[in-house]
């Protein structure tokens, strides 16, 4: 396994010199971090030359504090049985990246979801504008700075609470006479 991973690192490093690697010695997993311009070429290279023919998943992480989105492409090789994670970072103010649905057809669905839920532009993506949300004209809802509770309070009616409502946690404590730990106290009213 280590030998296969070392071969893979060498293959990638010869063609893509500024790819950064992170190795996980106990698992069959390797992480590569590349610039976003290299994404179509590194994925095509892995698919055609190295046998990584299966796109398992495309994941996204919203790093709000650093102001970036991180896209992770997870690809798998059935012969070597190694998962390769290819990571890039996009700027959060203007997230643009090339689309890869000519390499794997299923990336079309993933990219439509990201375009609707996070607002990422994929250059060359041809798909209808609406995906899941209908008549939605607010900000992209899955971003971390979209406050869904405030939006829900302002758009929908709420039923007012009961005047004699008791707190469930405190009632149970009173009846069973036990102490709740410190980390759970912040969930009581």
């Amino acid at each position: 396994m280590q030998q296969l991973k070392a071969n893979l690192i060498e293959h990638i490093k010869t063609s893509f010199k500024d790819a950064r690697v992170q190795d996980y010695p106990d698992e069959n997993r390797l992480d590569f971090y590349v610039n976003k311009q290299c994404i179509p070429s590194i994925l095509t290279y892995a698919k055609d030359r190295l046998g990584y023919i299966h796109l398992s998943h495309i994941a996204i992480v919203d790093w709000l504090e650093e102001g970036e989105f991180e896209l992770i492409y997870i690809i798998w090789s059935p012969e070597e049985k190694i998962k390769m994670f290819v990571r890039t970072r996009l700027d959060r103010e203007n997230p643009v990246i090339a689309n890869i649905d000519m390499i794997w057809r299923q990336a079309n669905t993933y990219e439509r979801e990201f375009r609707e839920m996070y607002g990422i532009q994929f250059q060359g993506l041809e798909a209808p504008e609406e995906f899941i949300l209908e008549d939605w004209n607010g900000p992209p809802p899955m971003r971390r700075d979209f406050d869904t509770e405030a939006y829900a309070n302002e758009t929908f009616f709420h039923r007012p609470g009961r005047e004699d409502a008791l707190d469930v946690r405190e009632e149970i404590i009173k009846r069973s006479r036990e102490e709740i730990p410190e980390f759970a106290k912040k969930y009581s009213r």
Partner: protein
Amino acid sequence: MINDKNSQKIVDIIQNWSRKHSIWVLAYGTGCGAIEIPPTMTSRYDAERLGVRGAATPRQADVLLITGYLTTKTLKRVIRVYEQMQDPKYVIGFGSCTINGGMYYDSYNTIKVLDKYLPVDVYINGCMPRPESVLAGFGKLQELIGDGKANGADKYKENLDWYRANQKKIIPNWVMPEYNW
């Protein structure tokens, strides 16, 4: 026949008695509570002995079961279905999401209080209610029909402007016709 109050009362009693013992439920599961309908209909908690069976189309149904949360996308279709049903018709709200939003009280997509958009006759609380609760809910609906008090449909017709205003507030692309009765 003499058309006075006493014979009208007798006709009402017979009519309500026969309506309450044959309630046809539209086979439309709007939310996650629809998973409690098959156990209620099958042989352990048999609902067919009360006369409750499934109906295929809205024109043949009596009761619309709103089982669980309603997103705005589904609400647009449910209003259309409700207005296609013919009198007498009832609405049962299942679960805590129809009462006050339930688990999805802070979601950007679901409606919180069903009563502002459709007239509800009976609420069944729980998340999800067990089949015994569902049968108790149907029993309560039968009681209301027997007394002649299950008139959500009349309430909808009289206050149509108010219901429409609430519905149009959250559904931007309105596709239903405008009625003028």
